[in-house]
Structure formats: structure tokens, C-alpha cells
């Protein structure tokens, strides 16, 4: 599968129809998603025949991108019914040969009790995700924003996976995540530095404006691995 070919397949993915601001629902672009999946496969060989999970799967961009590299089994989790419905539609559309399952759950609730998700722990090899940033200093500001949610996503991903966690984070949080990773006995590396476009928000009704672009923000594509 060539990179360009993958990107054009991913352009067929239906995206959020009515994105919810407080859940930070914006997609990873086909351009970014294709590069991410391509690099994880080519550089680290962390997809083929592996068990994959994604937290905040949204409309499925990253999991579908990874599916082109034939994981054994994938699980996608999201809190939102509407996103999951679109995701299911996208999965059906692509007629993937690898099994993908979806569940509706809140990462915050999953983390409440370890025994609650213990059976999932270490079933997975790899996690690929683009979590909500959850930080305050952001143009799209709402009261209900889930503060610190980015770290909670990383935490649950690190508990589910025995191997690597790939995730996108604001570059300004790099040092903080490094400290967290260390606490979890993981090694963090920056695979690449990206520019990310978050769609613009209409300040009157706090809705995302379709196709309008906010200024680029600096984002790290991180890889966290367990230190054995």
C-alpha cells in the first residue's frame, strides 16, 4: 500500500456531522492519519498481526488507516453515540477483512476501578489514538471541557497495551507527559512534530465552523513503550 493511495482511501471516510465541542470532536485528517499508520507499520512494525485499540475512535479515521496494515483484532472506544454510529457506517463501507469491534464507554469511568477493565489489560499490543487535548489555554473554550483528559487517555492506553502507545499531544505538554511516562515505567519518544489544524469555533453559538481553519498548532506524535 502506497502512502498516497492510503490517503485517498481515507478521504472516503465520513466525518463528524455535528461535532460536539466539549468532546473535542475533530478528525485526524486523512493526510496525517495515513502518515501515522504508514510510519507505525514501516518503522516499528506495530500493526500487522497485532491487537489494536483506540480510545476516542470518533468516526474511525485512525483505526481504519491502521486496518490497511492488517491487525488481528481492533477495538474502538468512544463516549459518543453519534460518533460511533458514523464510525460503524464507515467500517461497513470499507468492508474490512480484519475484525473491528466498538464499545461505548467513558475513559474517565473506565479508569475509576482497575478491576473494571482488568480483563482487557494486556490483551492489546498497540494503541493508536488522537485524544482530546483537554488543556485550558485553547481557543475552543467551554466550561464543560474535560480537564486533564489527555493524560487519562494515555493512562488507560498504557494499561490496555503490553507494547506501544501512539498518541497525538500538544507539543507544550511534552515535558509533562515525559514525567508521567516515567511514573508509569514507560519510555517516551517523539516520533515526529506535526502541525495540526483545529477547526475554528463560532464565538456566538460555540459551534465548530465547518471548513474554517484555526491557526496551526504544534503537535507531537508520541510513542510510549513499556520498560521491561
Amino acid at each position, binding site marked *: 500500500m502506497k502512502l498516497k493511495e492510503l490517503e485517498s482511501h481515507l478521504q472516503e471516510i465520513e466525518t463528524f456531522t455535528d461535532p460536539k465541542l466539549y468532546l473535542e470532536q475533530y478528525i485526524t485528517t486523512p493526510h496525517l492519519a495515513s502518515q501515522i499508520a504508514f510510519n507505525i507499520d514501516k518503522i516499528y512494525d506495530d500493526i500487522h498481526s497485532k491487537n489494536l485499540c483506540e480510545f476516542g475512535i470518533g468516526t474511525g479515521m485512525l483505526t481504519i488507516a491502521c486496518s490497511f496494515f492488517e491487525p*488481528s483484532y481492533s477495538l474502538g472506544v468512544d463516549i459518543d453515540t453519534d460518533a460511533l454510529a458514523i464510525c*460503524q457506517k464507515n467500517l461497513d463501507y470499507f468492508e474490512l477483512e*480484519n*475484525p473491528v469491534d466498538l*464499545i*461505548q464507554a467513558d475513559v474517565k469511568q473506565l479508569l475509576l476501578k482497575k478491576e*473494571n477493565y482488568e*480483563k482487557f489489560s494486556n490483551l492489546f499490543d498497540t494503541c493508536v489514538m488522537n485524544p482530546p487535548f483537554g488543556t485550558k489555554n485553547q481557543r475552543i473554550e467551554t466550561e464543560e471541557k474535560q480537564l486533564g483528559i489527555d493524560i487519562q487517555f494515555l493512562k488507560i492506553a498504557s494499561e490496555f497495551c503490553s507494547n506501544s502507545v501512539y498518541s497525538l499531544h500538544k507539543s507544550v505538554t511534552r515535558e509533562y507527559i515525559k514525567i508521567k511516562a516515567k511514573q508509569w515505567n514507560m519510555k517516551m519518544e517523539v516520533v515526529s512534530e506535526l502541525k495540526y489544524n483545529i477547526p475554528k469555533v463560532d464565538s456566538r453559538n460555540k459551534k465548530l465552523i465547518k471548513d474554517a481553519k484555526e491557526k496551526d498548532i504544534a503537535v507531537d506524535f508520541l510513542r510510549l513503550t513499556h520498560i521491561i
Partner: protein
Amino acid sequence: MKLITHNMLTSKILKNVVTGYPLKIHAVKAELKKADFQPDFIARMIKKIDYKTLYQAAETLGYAEGMPKTEILNEEDMNNEETLKKLHEVLLEIEVIEGDLECPETGRKFPINNGIPNMLVNEEEL
């Protein structure tokens, strides 16, 4: 929802629930969806799943025929191609599309719509 996923789900998040496992399946609609057979994967997974729960789930859905009737699989089962094929079907191909999952202790139901189990709970239930 595939049975490999069901095998991992619990209702332990609910207040006062001790094991919350296995969740009882009530299927209104189930389907078979073909997936590529990967014998190595199945052999690997079978060590990670709860076989008794898998058997029960398959039985509830009417697919247990051909599965070894035991609590724990032995070496021989794990090397038998026919058995692996059957387990592949049960783990990855059977899909519960509509129905619900019931907490064995409280009877709380988690609905499955469009193949997606909804595991969200209210604050008061935690």
C-alpha cells in the same frame, strides 16, 4: 459485538458489584460476519480468554456445536485445526447486533444497538 469483546466486559463499575462477570447475553439479532482465519492468532488468544464464558456465550446464541465441551482447553484442542476454525468463528465472526448485556448481580442491562454495547453508567450507579 463479537464474543472476544464480550469475554472482556464486566459490570464491575457498578456500585456494590463484586465480580460482574460474565455478563448475560440477550440477543434479539445476531449475525455471522466473515473474517480472515488466522490460526496463530486464535491459538494465542485462547490462552488469554475465559473459555467457560466463551462456551456459555456461544451456547446462548446457538453456536456451541463443535466447540470442545470443557472448562479449560488442553494442548490437543489448541493444535487441532478444526477446533481452531470453530473458535475463530465463535470469537470473531458471530456478532450480536441488537439486544443487551445483563449484570449477573444487579440485573442492570447494558443495551446493544447497531452492534455497539453501551457501557456508560450514571453518576448515581457508580
